[in-house]
């Protein structure tokens, strides 16, 4: 009911900025993170804020939300100028940031999560479960969502957690909602659901900021686009002026090649990996495919389709119940990760921060973590060959870091992913599986990572890319398998690999 009222009261066409960050300058030490950047947010508009990692996006958000103070510039909210914001002041002004981890309390219910922060903000001493529920219910109904208010948040899907965070923002009377990479962890249909909610929010007169790497999604939903590079405002304008290609051009300062480029695999030889009727009830069933040397095989499907579980079973994280795995013509039993590695399989996991990297360790320590056995000589580690391996990988993958002793924590997403790749390449695997190889990686690094994969395939490695990034699959894969509810539902090869076909296969 009240949502209709809200939509009536605020039009989407008027271009009066609800918030304007003007000429923001921010330096850290001697480094300028933002050189006079301006961002204008309009009520009822979605503003896509794009840029490669380290371009200053997060600094700008921190300044708007009051987490950092600008060196100069002003933040104008409804005509009132502020030299800087404070976290509390920002919330009072209706500015809400939804970070990637959503900052929810996992042990509390959805209703409690929605209501609690506003109760704290109002300095209420006692918390009443009875009073809180109707307020939460109201928001959920207003937005037309189906959220179970009594469910504990830790049991929710990523998408529902995000919805909870959005509801929490709205109960605090948010007029500006900034969302950091809102679609990364969502499936295609969940993204569509989010976008439907976004139009409801727009109708309520909320200004939204999408910080995103996924260009076509940003274009699908945004009215305004602002692009930053190296702390400078490159361009800002209506979304209709941009397309995928021009955005990536502005982001990287060069043309990014996303065209399809594949080398012919060695189909004449026996497959390097042959999977036959691999089954793990509840996860996947009767999975059979061959992987040839020099081939890049795409494994795609929605989140929860079983695509990740198949990879994890081949790497020994999960144990398949039946089926055969033949590596290089030899039947191989993979009961643990070590079995997989000994058979010549490497795996770049989806969650690279916890599963792939030792964040506080140096790049050097990370690179040799999987190949320690290879670098032994008379019981001791051979410092010379280790140094050679590290330098070789560091240079081959062009990891941008001051030196190999730098902790991985200090690297950007793209460089961190290269370190995980380096770790496996140092072990010389015959088969390399990569789960979401370019998630959270900026456009320029993404292209370079794909180039590295092509080079490895050309050198004879068999590569499996597990991904739901369709343009990426089209760009590198010789064949693409679509997984649906644990079964391979479609296979595409050669000229049949088009974005439309794969998208259709996933959604079918």
């Amino acid at each position, binding site marked *: 009911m009240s949502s209709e009222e809200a939509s009536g009261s605020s039009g989407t066409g008027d271009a009066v900025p609800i918030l304007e960050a003007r000429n923001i300058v921010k330096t850290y030490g001697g480094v300028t993170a933002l050189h006079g950047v301006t961002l204008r947010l309009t009520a009822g508009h979605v503003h896509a804020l794009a840029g490669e990692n380290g371009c200053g996006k997060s600094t700008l958000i921190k300044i708007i939300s009051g987490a950092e103070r600008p060196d100069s510039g002003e933040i104008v909210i409804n005509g009132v100028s502020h030299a800087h914001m404070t976290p509390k002041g920002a919330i009072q002004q209706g500015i809400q940031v939804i970070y990637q981890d959503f900052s929810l309390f996992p042990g509390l219910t959805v209703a409690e999560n929605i209501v609690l922060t506003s109760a704290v903000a109002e300095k209420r001493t006692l918390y009443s479960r009875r009073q809180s529920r109707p307020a939460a219910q109201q928001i959920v109904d207003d937005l037309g969502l189906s959220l179970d208010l009594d469910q504990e948040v830790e049991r929710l899907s990523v998408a529902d957690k995000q919805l909870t965070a959005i509801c929490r923002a709205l109960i605090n009377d948010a007029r500006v909602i900034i969302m950091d990479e809102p679609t990364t962890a969502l499936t295609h249909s969940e993204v569509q659901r989010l976008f439907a909610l976004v139009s409801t929010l727009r109708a309520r007169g909320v200004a939204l900021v999408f910080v995103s790497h996924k260009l076509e999604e940003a274009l699908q939903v945004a009215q305004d686009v602002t692009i930053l590079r190296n702390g400078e405002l490159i361009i800002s304008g209506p979304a209709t002026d941009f397309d995928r290609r021009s955005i990536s051009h502005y982001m990287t300062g060069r043309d990014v090649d996303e065209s399809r480029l594949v080398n012919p695999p060695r189909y004449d030889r026996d497959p390097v990996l042959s999977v036959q009727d691999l089954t793990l009830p509840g996860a996947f069933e009767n999975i059979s495919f061959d992987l040839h040397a020099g081939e890049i095989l795409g494994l795609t499907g929605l989140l929860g389709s079983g695509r990740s579980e198949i990879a994890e079973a081949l790497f020994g994280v999960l144990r398949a119940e039946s089926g055969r795995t033949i590596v290089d013509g030899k039947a191989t039993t993979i009961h643990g990760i070590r079995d*997989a590695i000994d058979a010549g399989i490497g795996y770049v996991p989806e969650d690279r921060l916890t599963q*792939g990297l030792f964040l*506080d*360790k140096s790049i050097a320590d990370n690179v040799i973590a999987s190949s*320690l056995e290879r670098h032994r000589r008379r019981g001791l580690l051979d*410092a010379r060959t280790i140094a050679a391996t590290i330098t070789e990988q560091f240079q081959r993958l062009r990891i*941008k870091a*001051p*030196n190999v002793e730098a902790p991985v924590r200090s690297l950007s997403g793209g460089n961190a992913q290269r370190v995980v790749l380096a770790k496996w390449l140092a072990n010389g695997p015959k088969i390399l599986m990569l789960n979401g190889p370019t998630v959270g990686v900026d456009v320029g690094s993404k292209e370079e990572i794909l180039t590295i994969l092509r080079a490895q395939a050309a050198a004879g490695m068999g590569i499996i890319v597990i991904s739901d990034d369709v343009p990426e699959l089209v760009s590198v894969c010789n064949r693409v398998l679509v997984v649906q509810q644990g079964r391979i539902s479609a296979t595409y090869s050669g000229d049949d690999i088009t974005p439309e076909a794969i998208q259709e296969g996933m959604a079918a």
Partner: protein
Amino acid sequence: MTDQKTDESVTRSTVRESNRRVDSAVMGAISRFHLQHGVVRMLVLTLLAFAIFTAVKPRVFLNPLNLQNIAIAAPEIGLLALAIMLTMLTGGIDLSIVAIANLTAITISSLYTAIGATDAGLAESLAPVIVLVGLAVGAVGGYVNGLLVSRVGITPILATLGTMQIFNGIAITWTGGKTLYGAPAMLTTFGRTVIAGIPALFLVLVAAAIVLAVVINKTALGATIRLQGANPVAARFSGIRTDRTLTSTYVMSGLLAGLAGILFVSRNPTASADYGSSYVLLVIVIAVLGGTNPNGGFGTVLGVILATLTLQIVSSGFNIIRLSSYDYAIAQGAILIIIMVIDQVTSGRRRRTVPKISDALATPTES
């Protein structure tokens, strides 16, 4: 004309190249200094403690006998601190080390007296075997801890708290709570030996420290121990055999504790279940003071050795200026907390600045 131009650009690019190289060398030195931070800090602290007590009571403190006393008391504590540091490297802890050390000491003493009761000469000639049996007791104790932590999956602090009670209980029932007297002459002679002014016991600590440093820094096992502590999940996904690494760690910890037990009986030909009951907390303080990260992944042998010496110097200094052991306990706690506060302050600042420096270096190459 054109030649000159290319010359110029060549020079410019070589200058840029050499600048880059200097940059990366400096950054390397800085980050290495951060890694060695704990060691440098400990060295300063050791020298400071030494200087203070030298200034206060130079005659008594610098007396060779006093210095030798420090060098005789430090090794057993140092070995136990190394043991706990090793387990902390994997992100665990071993609370049972003192109980294991006592069990080793009791084994050696009672085996020696039992054999000696029938044939004193035989007991003496079997001394090396008896010592090895004592060490084996340490290894077995450590293996039990290792199984509980790695195979059963019990949190190290709880697993070793349990085994500490068990080992201690075994020691008490075995000895009836009494102090056992008697140790092979081989050990007691060794305990009194001084080589070039340095007590042999201290050389045992130095040797053990060198071996442990080689294991931690130069072997695949050492690397896996450090990686395991830094991120157990990533260690598993990197193909590191977690259970094997943990079991080896706790066996090594048990062996070091056993060696400490051998030093107990070498210093004093006695053994009892309640010897060194205050050591558990002391060695945790030493390990952390020496720069070991209790969350795992980081720690150095040298840092722990220096921390051992510092606390021994403070202990002996307090003795000389006639402060009680209670004052020493207060000093231990105060030193630990001051160091932790300094750590918090500096690491907070470092965390804020380090990524920015690398960003600054990364951006020019990016564009």
